[in-house]
């Protein structure tokens, strides 16, 4: 049976891991290579590197960081942040990424997802959706949460699927960094609307939050950053907890 995936996210700026709250106030949280190695040993299923300021400051995801992180890593690696052109995507894939995560460019360049899917396969194309609840609708934002795209999460996810996205990385901006739990309602709405896997992100604080997003939220995978960085909860403890609650997870053999 397909295991529910636990994904660790490294928000990287200038080669260091940073973490903010509600997309603001970024603070340094460690060395990406050391963190990646620790997560790998703890049994993380995938890693995501997001160059969090790439789009705002016109900076490409740091290829050096990707190479360093990927050196001793034999699990899937996704890179996002500032992937705006075919060349950007090619560069991070050449540096060792298995998948690219696209956000803003999917709005500004309507053919982008389709071209990437044709070139690298749909499995390599993730659409990142940053959504915030406004007047009862989940409004989608680009440019690291600073630009309202004028789309709602469910319709945008459906459109991305038809354009060639192989997965949706869905972040609740309301919950990001708050540790108040994932937005299960948002996740379930998107997960039931598309046939491709949905990765829930934003708000992880306790083991129970993960259980909730996999059950109520119907997530295929759950992503967290700060909850793992501070090593309050080991990845392996989390998986043991989920397995104890009847969810299929990959435990180290």
């Amino acid at each position, binding site marked *: *049976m*397909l*295991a*529910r*995936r636990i994904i660790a996210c490294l928000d990287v700026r200038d080669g260091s891991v940073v973490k903010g709250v509600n997309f603001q106030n970024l603070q340094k949280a460690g060395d990406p290579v050391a963190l990646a190695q620790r997560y*790998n040993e703890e049994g993380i*299923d995938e890693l995501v590197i997001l160059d969090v300021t790439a789009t705002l400051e016109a900076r490409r995801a740091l290829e050096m960081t990707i190479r360093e992180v*990927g*050196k*001793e890593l*034999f*699990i*899937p690696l996704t890179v996002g942040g500032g992937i705006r052109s075919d060349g950007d995507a090619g560069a991070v*894939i*050449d540096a*060792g990424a*298995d998948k690219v995560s696209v956000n803003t460019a999917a709005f500004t360049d309507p053919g982008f997802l389709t071209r990437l899917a*044709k*070139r*690298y*396969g*749909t*499995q*390599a194309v993730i659409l990142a959706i940053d959504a915030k609840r406004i007047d009862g609708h989940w409004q989608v934002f680009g440019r690291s949460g600073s630009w309202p795209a004028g789309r709602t999460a469910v319709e945008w996810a459906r459109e991305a699927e038809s354009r060639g996205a*192989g*997965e949706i990385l869905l972040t609740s901006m309301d919950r990001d960094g708050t540790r108040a739990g994932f937005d299960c309602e948002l996740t379930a709405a998107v*997960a*039931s609307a598309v*046939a*491709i*896997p*949905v990765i829930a992100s934003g708000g992880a604080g306790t083991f129970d939050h993960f259980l909730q997003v996999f059950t109520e939220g*119907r997530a*295929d*995978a759950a992503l967290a950053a700060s909850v793992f960085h501070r090593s309050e909860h080991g990845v392996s403890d989390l998986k043991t907890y989920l397995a104890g609650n009847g969810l299929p997870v*990959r435990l180290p*053999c």
Partner: protein
Amino acid sequence: MRIALIDYGAGNLASVRKGFAAVGVDLESPDAPNALDRARGIVVPGVGHFSATAALGEQWRQAIVGRVNAGVPLLGICLGMQWLFDGSTEAEDVMGLGLIEGTCTRLEAAPPLKVPHAGWNTLVHLRASALMAGVAPEAHVYFTHSFAAPVNVDCAATATHGRSFAASVERDHIWGVQFHPEKSSAAGLRILRNFADLVNL
């Protein structure tokens, strides 16, 4: 040349190369079909659309089949495994290598299952396979695909996502895995090392 890595312009060759390097094997990518004559083993990697394999052209097809018929071990990974079959409904005008009988078809999974089948799944081993030596029976391996090969006489292990499909095949010195050993942590690296052992490196 010890093991040749076939490059058809799609897919992430760097990961496969890195995976083999971690088990002490350097892969080379021959730039012309006749260079395959010097290869003691062949790896066909791949992600993406079945039609991508068409980029190799008839000369490559003949060179690969010729070497395999001459006894050179071959490992197909993901799309590279699907290419071992007669073809795929993903691109009906593109021929597979025809080394293993059957046609790959799309996974049709009813909700809540998703397609692509992306993530870590377990295997059901139908028989002992030298490629899987030392891999724990309950080990998870990493899959990411929307099309899959049928379960037939050459199937060594199955996995299930909506339906049961061939997760690994073995026919004489031909092996294929639908999952990505280069992304399957320790279990995957063991499989790559096993292939190197089968090539006798």
